[in-house]
């Protein structure tokens, strides 16, 4: 008989446990339903707290979050506590009850907080008449984000089962808080990006203005010089003509320097991307060789091209690629020997098109090769000429196209001069 009654007790106990588990699950799903669809952090915390107090028949509670900057806990939402007590409250890690919960990640259940020496704010406890007290961590993965406190004005109010339930709610809430925080950060990041975009576009328009305002006066001066040199304003002496021609040359140099200097930030700011269309590499090369043929001829230099009949599609900025070709070919002319040769060759491989510019010129000293694409760098074997920016701009343009540029000197194939090669990706 005794054995049977024991069994009955066991069964009753298990039934009670099952019922408790069942109601626990119901409660958890109720909290989770209340939180679902909420993205605003304060809304989540308020809804969670209201639900917890309702479930626990409690009247007083609050959620403290960890401020990552100061590493202290503060009340983000609360119920039944006077704002004057909680609004200035900052609790350090390890300090008092909430402070030890956040540090250990373990919950604390107190029968009567007014009798507990760990209470950090005994004035608050006595003023509000707090007795029974529970504090659980709000965890997300391995981090503790805050603490959920609930209190009652009656002692011995909460059970270990209540604490287990609150623990589970704390975990649920922790995940919801983390999601809301990520969402908040995403929002600030987006704002940050929008701000950067705006700064970039105002920088570009500043550059446009600077370019216009710096070039306009020089353009006017140059125009008058050419009017005078062309004899449109009456005859001038040979001496005057010589000096005015020098003026004109210096102004051309200055205009070139201004456009080169302004080109660098423009390319860096991604202006090339705005000009991308399908381009014909062969047309660009032919135009460049055509434009520079008279200059080459003057020095007795022959320019030849070797371009396959059909090439894959290449996307790029026509203006910028023309600039690249002009820079490379005019360098090949400027640093060539009289009666030298220049060959422009296009080779298509699986993923890219390579353009090679070979010359029979003076070449680049080995020690200068690593720095040849740097701004204002000039090889030690050339006289000061040009802005020292041509190759730096060329490299930036090619990089902005997703391509690469490199140089060998002497050119391995011919044993002379140098060979510049750039690659551009084909297709999209």
């Amino acid at each position, binding site marked *: 008989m005794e054995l049977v009654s024991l069994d009955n007790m066991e069964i009753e106990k298990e039934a009670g446990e099952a019922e408790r588990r069942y109601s626990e699950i119901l409660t958890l799903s109720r909290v989770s339903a209340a939180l679902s669809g909420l993205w605003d952090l304060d809304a989540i915390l308020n809804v969670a707290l209201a639900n917890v107090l309702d479930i626990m028949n409690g009247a007083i509670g609050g959620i403290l979050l960890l401020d990552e900057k100061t590493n202290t806990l503060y009340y983000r939402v609360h119920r039944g506590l006077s704002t004057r007590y909680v609004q200035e409250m900052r609790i350090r890690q390890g300090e008092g009850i909430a402070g030890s919960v956040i540090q250990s990640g373990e919950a604390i259940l107190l029968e009567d907080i007014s009798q507990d020496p760990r209470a950090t704010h005994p004035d608050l406890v006595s003023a509000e008449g707090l007795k029974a007290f529970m504090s659980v961590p709000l965890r997300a993965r391995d981090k503790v984000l805050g603490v959920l406190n609930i209190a009652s004005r009656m002692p011995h109010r909460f059970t270990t089962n209540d604490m287990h339930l609150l623990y589970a709610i704390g975990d649920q809430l922790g995940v919801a808080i983390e999601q809301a925080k990520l969402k908040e950060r995403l929002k600030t990041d987006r704002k940050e990006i929008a701000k950067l975009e705006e700064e970039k576009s105002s920088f570009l328009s500043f550059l446009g203005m600077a*370019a*216009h305002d710096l*070039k*306009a006066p020089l*353009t*006017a001066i*140059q*125009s*008058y010089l*050419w*009017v005078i040199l*062309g004899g*449109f*304003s009456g005859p001038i002496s040979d001496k005057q003509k010589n000096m005015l021609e020098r003026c004109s040359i210096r102004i051309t140099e200055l*205009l070139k320097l201004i456009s080169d200097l302004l080109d660098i930030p423009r390319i860096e700011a991604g202006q090339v991307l*705005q*000009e991308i269309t399908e381009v*014909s590499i062969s*047309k660009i090369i032919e135009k460049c060789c055509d434009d520079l043929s008279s200059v080459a001829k003057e020095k007795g230099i022959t320019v030849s091209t070797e371009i396959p009949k059909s090439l894959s599609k290449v996307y790029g900025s*026509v*203006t910028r690629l*023309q600039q690249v070709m002009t820079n490379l070919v005019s360098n090949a002319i400027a640093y060539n020997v009289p009666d030298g040769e220049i060959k422009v060759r296009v080779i298509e491989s699986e993923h890219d098109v390579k353009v090679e510019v070979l010359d029979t010129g003076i070449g680049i000293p080995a020690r200068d090769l690593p720095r040849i694409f740097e701004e204002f760098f000039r090889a030690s074997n050339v006289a000061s000429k040009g802005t020292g920016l041509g190759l730096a701009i060329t490299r930036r343009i090619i990089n902005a196209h997703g391509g690469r540029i490199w140089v060998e000197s002497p050119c391995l194939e011919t044993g002379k001069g140098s060979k510049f090669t750039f690659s551009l990706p084909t297709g999209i």
Partner: protein
Amino acid sequence: MINVINRAKILVVDDDPDIVQALTMILESLDYRVVGARNGLEALDRIESEKPDLMILDLLMPKMDGFAVYQILQNRHRSGFWNMPTIILTSVREEASRRRFEMETGRKLDADEYMEKPFLPADLLAKVGNLIARKRSPISWDSPGDKGGAHGKET
């Protein structure tokens, strides 16, 4: 004075008075009649009152820029000026100007000629001479297909 009838009239539009004067001196050397305008609004007035044979148009100007002037003339097919030969004067590179216009308006900038500032007097006179000759030849003009041909889409 009989000649006056045959002397082509050229409207020069630029916000920089020095550029207008330089252009004027060069053009007058070949006996063209030159009218100046300092911005887009003035340009439209001069077109109505002076009925020029050719326009040299700067792009970046205050009040109304060259893009806007060009667009207005293109839209006014009945105004009689839509086929006036136009040389676009620009300090920006030609391709970049054209692309900017296309992006802003969704239309092609089919000007007859582009000239980058500063310009060589000989180049200017050659371009002006060609366009005036084309305008006066009744066969090649007034055919819209011919107008955009030189700057049509790359094939």
